[in-house]
């Protein structure tokens, strides 16, 4: 019996976490798991902190992931990795984009963007990998492909056959953006 695994995608509204969760869900489904994906629509999509929960295994009940329950957190932005750190299970893994996007309290100068977050998380004994997904996305042809760069990176850790990922890209990414996204995926996978 496969135990339930929990993956979180966290980021800033508008960064394309929804597309990433579609891709991941598609891959997990073709691997034969029961899958649940819980998304955020509405207000938070306007630049707020957003989270998507993905759970898979033999039989999934609750679609949400709570503090101390995530096996993997994929963060689209560094501050969000720190915000959602409590959701990581002991021995879990974080993959984060090193990009920093200032939230409104920082923009207005009432709060500081805390420094060295990745290092501080690592100092807690957490397995965290940071990559510059924005630069890779720009290299692939669009700063908006950060989501797919991160999918490329996770495809190595998650360990499903590459064809399943390619099929998921074909099925989830709009046709006119497919080329850029395939490039972004490849760059993420190599990173």
């Amino acid at each position: 019996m496969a135990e339930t695994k929990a993956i979180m995608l966290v980021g800033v509204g508008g960064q394309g976490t929804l597309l990433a969760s579609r891709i991941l869900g598609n891959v997990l489904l073709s691997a034969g798991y029961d899958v649940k994906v819980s998304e955020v629509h509405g207000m938070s999509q306007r630049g707020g902190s957003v989270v998507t929960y993905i759970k898979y295994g033999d039989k999934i009940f609750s679609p949400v992931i709570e503090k101390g329950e995530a096996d993997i957190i994929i963060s689209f932005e560094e501050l969000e990795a720190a915000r959602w750190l409590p959701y990581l299970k002991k021995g879990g893994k974080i993959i984060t984009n090193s990009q920093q996007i200032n939230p409104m309290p920082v923009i207005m100068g009432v709060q500081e963007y805390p420094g060295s977050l990745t290092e501080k998380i690592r100092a807690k004994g957490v397995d965290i990998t940071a990559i510059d997904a924005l630069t890779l996305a720009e290299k692939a042809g669009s700063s908006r492909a950060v989501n797919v760069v991160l999918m490329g990176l996770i495809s190595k850790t998650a360990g499903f056959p590459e064809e399943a990922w390619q099929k998921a890209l074909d099925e989830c990414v709009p046709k006119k953006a497919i080329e850029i996204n395939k490039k972004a995926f490849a760059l993420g996978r190599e990173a």
Partner: protein
Amino acid sequence: MAGLMLGNQAVARGLYEAGVEFVSSYPGTPSTEITEFASTYDKNEMYSEWAPNEKVACEAAIGASFAGRRSFCAMKHVGLNVAADPLYTASYTGVNGGFVLAVADDQGMHSSQNEQDSRNHAIGSKVPMLEPSDSGECKEFTKLAYEISEQFDTPVILRLSTRVAHSQSIVELEDRKTVRYDYTKNPRKNIMTPANAKPKHIVVEERTKKLVEYAETSPLNRVEMFDTEIGIITNGAAYQYAREALGEKASYLKLGMVNPLPVKLIKDFAAKVKKLYVVEELDDIIETHCRKIGLDPIGKELFTFIGEYSQTYLREKILGVKNEYEQLDDVIPIRPPVMCAGCPHRGVFYTLKKLGVFVSGDIGCYTLGSAAPLEAMDTTVCMGASVSGLHGFNKAMRGEYEGKAVAVIGDSTFIHSGITGLINIAYNRTNSTVLILDNSITGMTGHQNNPANGKNIYGDPAAAVDLEALCHAVGIDRVRVINPGDLAETEAAIKEELAADAPSVIICRKPCALLKTVKHKPPFKVDRDKCKSCKACMKIGCPAISMVDGKAQIDNTLCVGCGLCTQMCRFGAIQE
């Protein structure tokens, strides 16, 4: 075939398979995607539309049901307040073709102004209500709802929650089967005058008795027996949380039909377990029912009325077990939602803040104008309340505030329920100033076309409400259109209309920055030598601008070149 589907997508699939022919809705998170997905089916089989508001949507669906076709409308929880009037009486007329109304509650208020429990409307209108717990059930329950509707001659409410509507799980697809009935005139059934409604009320009460009988054995309500030490009566998303939290350490009575509730089924279940809990989010409806039938379950004395539950919450409450986790010592700044870079609403709220006026607010993207640094809003209640509320405010203040108070309302919200408030301003005369923020779209709920933008749900050309002519027609003489991207023009117009001795409307017209049809300029740049670090540009709260090493800097992945910030800089430091 099977696939992953959002709960909302699965409802749309259910509509299609049930042979529904008419769908009319007003958007509202978390219900919006049902109708968006419905509109992806062939419109000759299943026609969809965005109505101006929920009352119209519900009435249109009732009309389609009279015609003998299976019909549907969807809305968020507060939308059902707007549609309550037709629903409560459609409960008396009953249906010809099956009629299902979906309502999505927002436990946790992810995107809502209150957390009302729409089961109360099912009780109030005496209409059966079904509540699925995952996408598979969303589809199955939708189809079953049509059978119940036609069998018991009643509208049926399908209740969703944010978690069920916005979670994807596996759904099996089946074929569509069309069901149609002939129309025959039947005044005693369909004309609700007192003479006809009195006997109908008796029918409604009889119907409820029959529905209770149905609930006793319906496949919608399911018992899962494991360990009998703990028994849990639950519904909707809470079932999933309980099932995950307690696994086979408890037995479950999962209620898929949440109105009316069974009696014998619940009593029998209660008799088989040692400790009985009712796990339901929001109000204590199942619990109260249990007490009414002589049971004494543990309910709201242990579980909250507020927000969403989760497996962790239930594990902690019932078993006293907590999860462990890591945390940084740093204070993590919050990341609230903000108006997009280039949002057409930004200039209006900057101006209102600068003028220091009272702002009677409304609901939409522009409600974000209430947040720092703009903070230019005094009140927000429900859709349309900005316009009607300003009138009351101005009357009560005996005209004292007419020169320093405005209402702000989006185009979709104005059509939804602002027009009647404006009629009241003209008719009962206050010199109120109303700003219609016309961004040519229903932004907040994810960009739906609306009656003011000239496109229907399919993106095809449609009649567009002429807002200027409409305002004139209801009796407002002072109506003007401005470009809110021009700060000087915006300020001058607002000052002039506030000073005028007449009611007025300013239509602030500039499309939403996220529309594909909008052409953007390349990102603007700050000349670091010219920047005097005065932070004037920061006052508009554009997420693309921040101070880096003491000087303003524009994030070129966010900036859409709207040019608002250049109007703030006295030193010409921000350039195209």
